[in-house]
């Protein structure tokens, strides 16, 4: 396989029957699989074999799915291109020579290349929606608390959710049906709002008659011209089918990227403190005292982007800077939530381009981390607000895939699935 989609190709069979019997699924390599190496795309965990399954993996197996491999990803989910993986870059099957997006790039590429029917990724600031948009497939970021994070290796745990990929909205929704719902091993989860005879897949009717769509003007500003054009074409298609749209304003999102990165880096600096090379992971040896051995393990085990985020997070939380960065970022987070609540009180869903740019060429974007962070402008506000969103193929610009993002109210996945299924 030339695209380097999987870090580990290994077949894990599920039970004989169930709603996903006969379906193949790629699983992002930060989701624990009992007995099968789970690296997080990092040298730190190159040889780590989890002794237990993540809840979503148990549910996949019970549903009869066959896992076909552990998909490549940006190291610990930190990236927008899948190029920070210790195991090499992944090519984009829908746009060869370009990145598949990130951080769940291998998962999206597996579905785009037909290596798997479905895939699981995780989305901390856009890591399901970005690769879905770049690879021309569907990706869902569920409401915070809809899907168990037990067994997901934590990066920014107040922000992240595991989410499904599929070729179509209905297929992605059928995977959401399997993984959604409360789990006593993750106290932030709750039951789905579905009635007993309902499913997310059944919501994929494509019926958008009378749907009211809000378009946040801030999320179009500064976006690539071809992307914006493709976005409006897709919106026109929804209008033809009975939806109507109006512009809305979310002034707070001007500060979402910096708020997101302060919070995510702060959480990362704490979460990744566990990697000291003693209980698991790359060892720093036994020379010198423990601080020296830990610092050696972490120098050798982590790549540049992970070090950058741990250091900046440590800085943002350090004495004298906490109020300036972390506390202000939490204010911004609350403000973003308020803005979304207001906009969604006058619209059923909000629509924007998923990514303001088409897929980068491989190697194009690695040198300037800040520029790459800014590419997350349309996805990170959703994580700050804990809301559900879906990315659905909108078309192409110069032969490169463009995604349309729909954002809905908390636990409003059915509404998103119904609306997005009008397009794919």
């Amino acid at each position: 396989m030339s695209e380097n989609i999987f870090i580990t190709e290994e077949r894990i069979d599920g039970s004989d029957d169930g709603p996903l019997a006969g379906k193949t699924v790629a699983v992002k390599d930060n989701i624990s699989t009992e007995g099968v190496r789970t690296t997080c795309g990092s040298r730190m965990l190159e040889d780590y074999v989890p002794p237990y399954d993540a809840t979503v993996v148990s549910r996949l197996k019970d549903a009869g799915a066959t896992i076909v491999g552990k998909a490549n990803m940006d190291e610990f989910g930190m990236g927008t291109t899948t190029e920070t993986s210790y195991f090499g870059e992944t090519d984009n099957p829908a746009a060869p020579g370009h990145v598949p997006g990130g951080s769940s790039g291998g998962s999206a590429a597996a579905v785009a290349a037909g290596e798997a029917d479905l895939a699981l990724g995780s989305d901390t600031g856009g890591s399901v929606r970005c690769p879905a948009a770049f690879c021309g497939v569907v990706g869902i970021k569920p409401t915070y608390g809809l899907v168990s994070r037990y067994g997901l290796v934590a990066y920014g745990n107040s922000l992240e959710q595991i989410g499904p990929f599929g070729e179509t909205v209905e297929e992605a929704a059928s995977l959401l049906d399997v993984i959604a719902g409360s789990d006593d091993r993750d106290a932030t989860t709750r039951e789905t709002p579905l009635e007993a005879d309902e499913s997310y897949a059944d919501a994929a009717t494509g019926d958008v008659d009378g749907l009211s769509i809000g378009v946040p003007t801030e999320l179009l500003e500064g976006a690539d011209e071809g992307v914006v054009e493709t976005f409006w074409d897709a919106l026109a298609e929804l209008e033809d089918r009975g939806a109507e749209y109006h512009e809305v304003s979310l002034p707070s999102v001007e500060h979402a990227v910096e708020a997101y990165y302060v919070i995510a880096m702060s959480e990362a600096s704490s979460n990744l403190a566990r990697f000291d090379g003693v209980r698991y992971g790359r060892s720093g040896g036994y020379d010198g005292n423990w601080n020296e051995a830990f610092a050696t393990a972490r120098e050798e085990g982590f790549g540049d982007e992970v070090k950058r985020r741990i250091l900046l997070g440590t800085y943002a939380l350090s004495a004298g800077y906490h109020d300036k960065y972390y506390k202000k970022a939490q204010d911004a987070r609350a403000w973003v939530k308020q803005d979304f609540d207001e906009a969604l009180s006058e619209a059923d869903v909000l629509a924007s381009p998923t990514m303001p740019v088409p897929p980068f060429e491989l190697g194009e974007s690695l040198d300037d981390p800040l520029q790459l962070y800014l590419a997350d402008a349309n996805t990170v506000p959703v994580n700050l607000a804990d809301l559900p969103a879906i990315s659905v193929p909108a078309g192409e610009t110069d032969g490169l895939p463009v995604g349309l993002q729909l954002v809905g109210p908390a636990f409003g996945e059915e509404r998103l699935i119904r609306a997005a299924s009008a397009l794919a």
Partner: protein
Amino acid sequence: MSDDAVSPEEVRHVAELARVDLADDEVDRFTGQFADILEYFETLDEVPEVDRDADLANVMRPDEERASLDSEEALRNAPETEDGYFKGPNVS
């Protein structure tokens, strides 16, 4: 490091707090990048104070014994173990 440019010493200090050794060329590269990124974070100063009324309920469970990993499984990924324990570097 917020008011003026970030210095290499400050990058080294934070790296020490975070227990991450850095090579000299990494320090140089991060010094420039951190200056850009922190300057961008400065715009959070423009964010107003916002009421944060989280409507959340705590989730509790009874504190009862339940099955967990046995020690052999828990030790399986450790680089070194001794007599059923993790083995770490010297604490001093």
